[in-house]
């Protein structure tokens, strides 16, 4: 096995996770990403693994029975308690067969874990997964079942490995943090836009875990309009220290790509640069600490045309031990998708920054972020 053997988990059934046409969470981004990789000869059919559908029994390792039942009911269009279960809201409306579609997404993430744990691959990626807001008893923020928590629990139950969870979605990884808040064998670390305004509002620096899990949750809330340089300064410094402190056996990472300046829901104001750097650093750490064991999942990303396909393709490229793509995007890809896109597609892998507005408060924001991450890391220095 090559030390960079990677698998790409994919099934057309992933596209069934679809609330409605106008909903910002749109899995057509998977098709756009996969096609972009194929057009660049960076993804072969041998690397694509169709996940086995898992038994629904696994859901109860994280989720409560009455909630699982509620999702089933909503799935066949029966009424459920909106406030109690969070289904039927503006964020997570009902859709038919939502139970099967959600289980399919979970199957993809569990398959990714199995590929790595059974030694079939060093790294595995399931871009359909990464639904970090799901709670044991309710849906939240576009997420129904929490495939990440289920995957981590699967690793804990079957292999007893120490899991480092890295979340770089612009929203706080609240559901995953919640599930392992008292567990010292799962270290959760989330980089996100401050919850002062942005959903879900949690992820403050003082959230550090409870009981035996105290000291195994880390939160780095970044100021709105943080931009690339300060984001990477915080990420690089924090992730090196936390990984060294925790000494993980495997890394599970969530790759929401909604920190980009074109994303309609958030305000971190990054460019594609951070989506090249983040996977490169995680890749190196996986080899340094975990014999390469790394499971990468998707997440947020609501500019599905201009941002997500490029950002996630770079993740795959880096995962395979390659340098990030540079230069122009495949003409064939542009010709195929531009007619269907409501916006002008970018022509190059790196942002040309034509629509990018520099932030006048940059100095102040950088300083705030520096103070923030140093304060969070002080815990490691004194322990």
């Amino acid at each position, binding site marked *: 096995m090559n030390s960079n053997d990677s698998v790409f988990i994919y099934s057309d059934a992933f596209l069934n996770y679809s609330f409605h046409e106008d909903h910002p969470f749109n899995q057509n981004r998977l098709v756009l990403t996969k096609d972009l990789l194929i057009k660049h000869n960076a993804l072969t059919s041998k690397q694509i693994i169709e996940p086995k559908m898992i038994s629904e029994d696994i859901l109860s390792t994280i989720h409560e029975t009455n909630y699982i039942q509620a999702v089933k009911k909503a799935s066949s269009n029966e009424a459920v308690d909106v406030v109690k279960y969070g289904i039927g*809201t*503006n964020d997570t409306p009902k859709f038919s067969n939502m139970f099967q579609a959600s289980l399919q997404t979970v199957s993809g993430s569990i398959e990714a874990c199995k590929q790595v744990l059974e030694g079939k691959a060093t790294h595995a990626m399931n871009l359909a997964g990464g639904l970090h807001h799901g709670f044991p008893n309710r849906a939240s*923020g576009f997420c129904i079942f929490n495939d990440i928590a289920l995957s981590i629990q699967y690793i804990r139950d079957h292999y007893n490995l120490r899991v480092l969870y890295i979340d770089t979605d612009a929203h706080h990884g609240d559901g995953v943090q919640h599930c392992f808040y008292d567990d010292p064998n799962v270290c959760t670390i989330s980089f996100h836009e401050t919850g002062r*305004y942005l*959903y879900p*509002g949690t992820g403050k620096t003082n959230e550090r875990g409870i009981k035996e899990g105290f000291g195994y949750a880390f939160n780095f809330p970044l100021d709105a309009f943080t931009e690339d340089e300060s984001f990477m300064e915080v990420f690089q410094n924090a992730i090196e220290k936390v990984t060294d402190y925790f000494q993980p056996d495997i890394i599970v990472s969530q790759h929401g790509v909604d920190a980009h300046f074109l994303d309609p829901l958030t305000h971190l104001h990054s460019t594609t640069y951070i989506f090249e750097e983040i996977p490169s650093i995680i890749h190196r750490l996986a080899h340094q600490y975990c014999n390469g064991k790394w499971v990468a999942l998707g997440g947020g990303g609501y500019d599905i045309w201009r941002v997500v396909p490029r950002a996630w393709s770079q993740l795959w490229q880096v995962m395979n031990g390659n340098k990030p793509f540079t230069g122009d995007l495949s003409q064939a890809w542009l010709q195929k998708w531009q007619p269907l896109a409501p916006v002008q597609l970018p022509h190059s892998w790196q942002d040309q920054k034509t629509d990018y*507005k520099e932030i*006048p408060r940059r100095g102040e924001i950088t300083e705030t972020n520096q103070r923030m991450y140093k304060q969070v890391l002080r815990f490691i220095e004194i322990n």
Partner: protein
Amino acid sequence: MLVKDIMKKDVHTLMSNHTILDAIQLLELHHIRHIPIVNEQQHVIGIISDRDVRDARPSIFDENNNEILATPIHKIMSTPVITAHPNDFFEEVASIFYKKSFACVPVIKNNQLVGIVTEKDMLHTFIQLTGTDSPSTQIEIKVPDQIGVLSEVCHYFTKRNIKIVSVYNYPDPKDSSYNILVFRIQTMNPMPVIEDFKDSEYQILYPYWED
């Protein structure tokens, strides 16, 4: 919200003939900063704070301090004591804290001690009021200070099937004929409702302060 909803009912007390040493031990044991002093009928006759005790206790460098530590606490307690009733509004207690510059009031009903409210309880209440303990997005809206504005603004959320987690209101510091309404709403995608507001007279302030 009433004082009885936020007060602590489990109160640590001493009697006036207890000593300064007793007070030191009680403060340290329970990590508290105030001790109401009661008589046999549970009437509050005084109160001492950790600062009163610190002023009275001998220097840690002074080894012959037994006499001071044995002093009865009625010599150092503050009296009379400002108290609250369980049915007082919590904001009345907040106003006592602010005006009198102290940080604790015993709660009295029928002359008997029934609870205690500290600055920390008060802050916790204010944190709860701002609603950050459940997943939500915050938006701030500038509205004219007029009748019916709040209900009209709320209707925008109802139309989009979005639950309001919390709401509070403060006067616009720049223009007294306007208020700022601060909502926490249960949605990750506030864009549609923000779009709705664009056609209204209400101005969304959040969080377009990039410059």
